[in-house]
């Protein structure tokens, strides 16, 4: 039955997931990465007037620069052409390591408009850029004060390009996302680059006001794109227009105006669909099994090694005629581990009552003392030995962590118990306790879900209930429907799903990797993206 249910659940989840996959929308990756992304400006500080072109280099340029063909620069006076070649540059200009290339066209006349494009013959294929223009060179009023360096990117600022503005997806409104291709001056990592200013207006004509600034650098290396969320006093439903200015050594270069963008609230976070589906299944199966357990259905739980040892350990204490110590951790009753630990105490107490072995439970919280007394009393009653019970079995030492450890230490050394249990939430005192128990040769059975203390218990105790085993043991012993059902629900709705999804998708991913198909593993990874 369990298998069928599990299988059913698996199929139920995988189907919507696959449907989800089909409808999977790409992220807000609006800025394309065409070859080149050509921009041109009238060269600053050039009293003669000239145009400087900038474009991003083609793939392979940086890697195999020496064998890479030159870029041809084509110019026209009308957007439709005809374009004529006016020169060419190689990979080394201005610097081989840059991600962009530049060319300065000096054979121009101030006041005329020009259109440019770049082409390159790569392995028999001609790759052309976008057409940029119109651009008219302006004669600068004064020359640059400093000597014009060889690195042309260091004397002028290029504008950011391809600015896109859109409502930030999946939010409660109040913000608009801007995305632009970084300025060439920024991409060249010029030290004088000062970041970007963001200007905003409610109409395309302006007036624009500065609403923020940001540093240089890219948010997405592959696309050379910078993303920014403007959240300054945005009103939902209002149209906004933006432009971005690149700042470089006192100069600024503005992008084109983009917009309008309207900020809106969304009703559902589309990136969280997979979460909702998987979480829904988990929640559903937990509730289902809790109900089943309540209805009295038998739910199977495997044997837990530490629990089996409990009988043996109690038996040994009886043989030796010594006491059993039970330490329920140093946390209060609101901690699930303490509660689980006390359930196990019930079992131990029942055994000690049957064997007539002395039990001692030193505790560090008054509430735990009250609860532990209840549990021990009930266990003695159930074992038919209520006469054997007295309140002194459970006693309070102190709330203080080290004080409690020192107290238990002293007791253990004096009374030399045959068996010591540590079940509950433990912190740094764990190793002090375990060491002392060990030094008197007691059998020690520990159980905790504190990850940092588990190693010490494993190394110093005979048996350790590791993490979840503690909770499983408590569910097993108490037979409480809510605990049993949760355990079962976690197993089938969580772990089994994880296991089966992992197995299926690992196989698919491996096939994808060996067939050199990047899309497959990419899709798998994106499916489980956390947003």
């Amino acid at each position: 039955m369990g298998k069928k249910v599990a299988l059913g659940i698996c199929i139920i989840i995988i189907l919507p997931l696959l449907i989800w996959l089909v409808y999977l929308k790409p992220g807000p990756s609006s800025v394309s990465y065409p070859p080149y992304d050509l921009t041109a400006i009238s060269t600053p500080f050039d009293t003669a007037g000239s145009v400087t072109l900038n474009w991003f280099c083609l793939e392979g340029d940086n890697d195999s620069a020496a064998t890479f063909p030159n870029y041809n620069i084509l110019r026209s006076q009308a957007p439709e052409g005809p374009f004529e070649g006016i020169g060419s540059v190689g990979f080394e200009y201005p610097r081989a390591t840059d991600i962009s290339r530049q060319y300065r066209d000096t054979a121009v006349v101030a006041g005329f408009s020009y259109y440019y494009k770049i082409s390159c013959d790569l392995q028999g294929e001609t790759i052309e850029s976008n057409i940029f223009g119109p651009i008219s060179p302006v004669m600068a009023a004064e020359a640059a004060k400093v000597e014009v360096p060889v690195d042309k990117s260091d004397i002028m600022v290029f504008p950011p390009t391809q600015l896109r503005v859109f409502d930030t997806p999946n939010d409660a409104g109040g913000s608009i996302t801007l995305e632009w291709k970084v300025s060439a001056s920024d991409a060249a990592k010029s030290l004088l680059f000062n970041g970007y200013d963001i200007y905003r207006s409610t109409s395309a004509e302006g007036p624009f006001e500065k609403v923020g600034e940001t540093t240089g650098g890219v948010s997405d290396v592959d696309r050379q794109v910078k993303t920014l969320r403007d959240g300054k006093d945005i009103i939902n439903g209002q149209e906004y227009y933006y432009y971005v200015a690149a700042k470089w050594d006192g100069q600024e270069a503005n992008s084109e105006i983009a917009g309008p963008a309207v900020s809106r609230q969304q009703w559902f976070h589309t990136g969280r669909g997979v979460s909702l589906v998987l979480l829904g299944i988990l929640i559903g199966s937990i509730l289902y099994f809790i109900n089943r357990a309540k209805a009295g259905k038998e739910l199977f739980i495997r044997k837990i090694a530490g629990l089996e040892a409990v009988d043996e350990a109690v038996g040994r204490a009886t043989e030796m005629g010594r006491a059993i110590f039970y330490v329920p951790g140093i946390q209060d009753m609101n901690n699930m581990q303490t509660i689980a630990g006390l359930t196990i105490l019930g079992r131990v107490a029942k055994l000690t009552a049957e064997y007539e072995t002395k039990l001692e439970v030193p505790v560090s919280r008054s509430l735990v003392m009250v609860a532990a007394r209840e549990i021990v009393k009930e266990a003695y009653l159930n074992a038919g030995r209520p006469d054997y019970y007295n309140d002194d079995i459970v006693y309070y030492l102190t709330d203080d962590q080290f004080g409690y450890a020192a107290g238990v230490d002293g007791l253990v050394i004096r009374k030399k118990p045959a068996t010591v249990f540590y079940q509950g939430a433990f912190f740094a005192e764990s190793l002090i306790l375990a060491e002392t128990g060990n030094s008197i040769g007691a059998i020690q059975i520990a159980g905790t879900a504190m990850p940092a203390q588990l190693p010490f218990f494993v190394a110093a105790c005979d048996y350790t209930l590791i993490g979840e085993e503690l909770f499983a043991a408590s569910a097993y012993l108490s037979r409480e429907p809510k605990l049993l059902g949760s355990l079962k629900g976690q197993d089938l709705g969580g772990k089994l799903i994880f296991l089966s999804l992992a197995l299926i998708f690992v196989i698919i991913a491996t096939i994808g990797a060996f067939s050199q198909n990047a899309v497959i593993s990419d899709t798998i990874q994106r499916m489980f993206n956390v947003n």
Partner: protein
Amino acid sequence: MDKFWERLLTIDRRVIFVVIFLALSVPIFLQIGLPIPVTREVQVLYDSLEDLPRDSKILVSCDFDPGSEPELQPMAEAAFKYFVENDLRFIVIGLWPQGPIQGNRAIEDIDESDDEYIVKDGDTLYFGADLVVVGNDTAWYGIDFINLGFQVGQELVIQRMGTSFEATFPSDRRFGRPQKEFPIMDGIYRLADFDFVFNLSAGYPGTVEWVQFAVDRFHVPVGAANTAVQAPLAYPYLDTGQLSGILGGMKGGAEFEKLVGHQARATMFMTSQTMAHIFVMLFIIVGNIAFFATMKKSDRRGIRE
């Protein structure tokens, strides 16, 4: 022979205390330069910091107390030095009440100006506390760094920052003024406006919470400086890319100091740390030999699968 092992096993533990005290004390006096190979996780953190453009804003969350000071304080100092030298701006907060004060102490300790008056722009005098000098670089309070104090609420604080930073940390700690009066806070409306979060963590709340909320909900990269106890728990997050690097314990601190080029306390303590490890291993070996040599006789049922 058995007698010997038995005596060894029942040795007073104060003897062990003395041995470990000596093993750790002596190397403090010996200044041995040890090789410190840099591990991947530290390199990842350093690279992420290197990739940050100038003037990036880093949220430094000091989530530790004096109990973990020897491990985390050197990391805080090395990081702050690095930030000042590389023109990165940092905002100090704490999810532990002791955090901001530890942050203050780190800033004070890296300051080379000794609180003397500094001459700037020919004639202006500034008191040292508002100005931090590291080598040739300076950082100004309110412009390059700020301390916004502590806020109670564990992970809920991070969640709250996600929608409004100002509502979460409304005032600064040096002047007790509204935070928006300081230029460094321009453009910071919510957690996502930070370029990086540097988390110094000794427990809960700490790295796990920063990953869960800052990274997974608000998509800010987080680099973690952890006590060694915490570090192994954080490694899975490094593998998934949820964490941009881990500095684990004093060793991680020493590696980080090496990378940023300020070898200080963490590096210095590595000799003692090495000795400590050697002795702990020796203790375990000797203890086990003694235990198994004497075991046959005792009634101790030790071996079990």
